[in-house]
């Protein structure tokens, strides 16, 4: 910017003082509105109606005043400097509302904010958006829009955007005001197949705490809690330092997770792993093979159950009446068994012992006894046992996997099961892999309801994000009881103002878009007008 002195300089200086006056008046109005609000609310306890009425009256009063008072009040109100100041002041209120906890018991403010506590409560900053200082700003907001509109009257195509957008602001504001004064909100507790609801317990609105009759009957036919399918994943956890209740601790935090596939995966820590085998429905089977330095083992079957018995082990029927006992030395019959099949490894004999005596026979390869109910053999004098892993089916009933980790050139294997999740630690204990089940998460709460008003009957499913409107009331899914699957808590809302809020906002969008993209074309060539002051 060059600053060559011109004849305009004098005019600038003059307008500078006018601008100063405008700035002073702006500050006076904005601060004044807040102070008046703060003082007034000492005598007038704000409620929705008070707020809306006070805002409306103040707005019109300021506007009226601007027409009769000589001087710059009206142009100041309509000016961009005033508007911007007001918007920033409103923004500051919105920010305070996020810094100071809202709507808590008064004692908490004293406890939490010390000397500022009583001040916060006195200014009603504990419920800042329902206090009169905020209402004061809102009043100025309305007056400013009306005043700037009055200066731009009448509407023309080249100015339509401004009117549409700013009328939208007023419509939205009026809708919000109507909503805060007229809306009623309450709870209905229903039980599937239980009583028909005809009333709502009001939680917000003029009749708060009372039961109010609904203009219809409502019945819960059924309540469904739908879950997502559970999932099985390999989670990778990293050790982190956390501070909990002021105490520094070490904890593991999920960093990422993998599908239980058999591909090799790289881990964030730099190591890698793969699942060498995955068993969705895990079982172990024992296999016995001949080998050096082994222990004696005998295969025995009883009533369809086959097992390998080591020295001293036995296999008994469920009722304990029949037992097969294996010993290298001749074993003794277990107490309580009416029939005992005793196998001696060293002697290679089978003795069937009953109360009335015993019959011995040599054990060749294998032998069927008691009419085939028991089978013994083969006998392996030096047996090595191996445990085999297998899956019973492809259903994810009891998942397990063999995790093969590659840490700095070292390869290790470990069996992990979801039933007993244990970490496979990597790199000391800095990180760990866990094969885990992601429990069911709630997918939907569905209330199947029937509403009846005279002959008019409607069925609907109410769920979160999918309310149901009937006879002027809208029903929302808000509660359930994990202990009682028949219970469903619905919220009933009657809000005649809300549609106007949305209409207003849609108008703002349209008007602003029109101002930005249509009006410049109507004015010709998309050339911007120089900075103007209203």
């Amino acid at each position, binding site marked *: 910017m060059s600053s060559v002195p011109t004849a305009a300089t004098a005019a600038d200086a003059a307008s500078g003082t006018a601008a100063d006056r405008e700035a002073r008046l702006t500050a006076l109005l904005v601060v004044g509105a807040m102070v008046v609000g703060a003082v007034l609310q000492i005598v007038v306890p704000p409620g929705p109606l008070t707020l809306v009425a006070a805002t409306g009256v103040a707005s019109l009063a300021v506007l009226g005043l601007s027409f009769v008072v000589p001087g710059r009040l009206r142009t100041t109100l309509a000016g*961009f400097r005033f508007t911007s100041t007001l918007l920033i002041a409103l923004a500051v209120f919105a920010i305070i*509302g*996020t810094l*100071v906890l809202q709507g808590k018991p008064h004692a908490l403010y004293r406890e939490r904010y010390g000397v500022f506590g009583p001040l916060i409560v006195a200014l009603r900053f504990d419920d800042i958006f329902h206090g009169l200082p905020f209402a004061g700003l809102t009043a100025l907001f309305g007056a400013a829009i009306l005043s700037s509109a009055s200066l731009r009257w009448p509407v023309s195509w080249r100015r339509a955007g401004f009117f549409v957008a700013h009328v939208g602001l007023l419509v939205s504001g009026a809708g919000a005001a109507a909503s805060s004064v007229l809306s009623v909100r309450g709870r209905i507790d229903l039980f599937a197949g239980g009583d028909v609801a005809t009333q709502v317990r009001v939680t917000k609105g003029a009749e708060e705490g009372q039961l109010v009759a609904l203009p219809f009957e409502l019945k819960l036919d059924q309540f469904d809690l739908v879950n997502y399918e559970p999932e099985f994943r390999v989670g990778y956890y990293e050790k982190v330092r956390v501070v909990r209740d002021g105490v520094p601790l070490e904890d593991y935090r999920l960093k*990422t*997770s993998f599908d239980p596939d058999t591909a090799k995966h790289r881990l964030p820590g730099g190591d890698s792993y793969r699942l060498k085998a995955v068993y969705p429905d895990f079982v172990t089977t024992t296999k016995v093979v001949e080998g050096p330095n082994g222990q004696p083992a005998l295969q025995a079957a009883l009533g369809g159950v086959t097992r390998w018995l080591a020295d001293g082990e036995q296999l008994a029927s469920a009722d304990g009446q029949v037992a097969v006992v294996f010993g290298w030395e001749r074993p003794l019959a277990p107490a309580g068994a009416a029939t005992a099949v005793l196998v001696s490894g060293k002697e290679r004999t089978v003795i069937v012992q009953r109360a009335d005596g015993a019959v011995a026979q040599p054990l060749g390869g294998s032998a069927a006894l008691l009419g085939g109910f028991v089978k013994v053999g083969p006998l392996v004098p030096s047996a090595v046992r191996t445990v085999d892993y297998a899956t019973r089916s492809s259903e994810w009933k009891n998942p397990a996997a063999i995790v093969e980790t590659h840490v700095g050139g070292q390869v290790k294997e470990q069996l992990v099961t979801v039933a007993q999740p244990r970490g496979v630690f990597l790199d000391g204990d800095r990180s760990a892999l866990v094969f885990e089940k992601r429990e069911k998460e709630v997918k939907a709460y569905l209330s199947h309801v029937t509403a009846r008003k005279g002959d008019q009957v409607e069925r609907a499913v109410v769920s979160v994000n999918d309310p149901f409107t009937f006879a002027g009331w809208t029903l929302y899914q808000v509660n359930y009881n994990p202990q009682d699957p028949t219970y469903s808590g619905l919220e009933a809302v009657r809000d005649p103002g809300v549609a106007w809020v949305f209409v207003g*906002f849609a108008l703002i969008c349209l008007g*602003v878009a029109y101002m930005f993209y249509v009006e410049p074309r109507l004015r010709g060539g998309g050339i911007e007008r120089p900075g103007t*002051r209203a």
Partner: protein
Amino acid sequence: MLQYVLAEHPFFAFTSLLYAASMAAYAAAWRSTKAFVGQVGTALMMAAVVLNAAVIAGRYLEAGRAPLKSLFESLVFFAFNMGLLYVVLERLYKTRVFGLPAAFLSFGAMAYALLKWDAEIVKLPPALQSAWFVPHVMVYFVGYAALAFATGVAVVQLLASRVPWVQRLTTLKLGSVLSGQPLDLDKIAYDVVRFGFILLTLGLLVGSVWAKSAWGDFWVWDPKENWSLVTWLVYGAYLHLRKVRGWRGDKAAWLAVAGFAVIMFTYLGMGLLPTSEESNHVYSG
């Protein structure tokens, strides 16, 4: 970590790499008189945007829902919007001067996602299963990208009046100013803020309609709501103030930067607020 991302999320890694490469090319175009250098920047940027779209699409398929839930997902989405919008605006304003800040922002979002790595796919809770969810987030992120771009322009504008070679950059037909006309930075920033502002307004509308259908109230003075209102009011003040004499140039540029700081706080800073515990909106993690 890098090896892991390369091996397990190669598209993510290459997208980030491409953004970084286009950043370098655009930076070179600031100093080079060869059109080719700038063209390389554009080509790399476009490639990054395409790959970024693939990352998003892949995750969409994997998760079975729009990947806009976690902070990680939203960062990847922001990078995409920034890149795409930039490519469009490069055409519109016939300049590559802003390629560097745009690629830097996209790369920055990806780098931040890497730093806050959280590729876990979370199930959508009932509260987020709404037809309004995707439009709401999309509108805001395109808006944020526009305002980020405008902020980039504002920063260049602030530098131009202080650093002579930046001034030259915006006036000469180097690799970066394609039309040969000096750039009107003030007007570009204003234009793009206006576009972003419409989206912020639409975002508020969609958000409040959604709130109504989910909670029965169109506005609950939740911290995130309040801060998006603050964002809207600050940009509203920007738009009105520009019509006050003396509020163009540097002052307006600073205001645009301040507006974007508010956006950043709204997006990432909610966890710092004492009231955030009760918010329905704060990203956890």
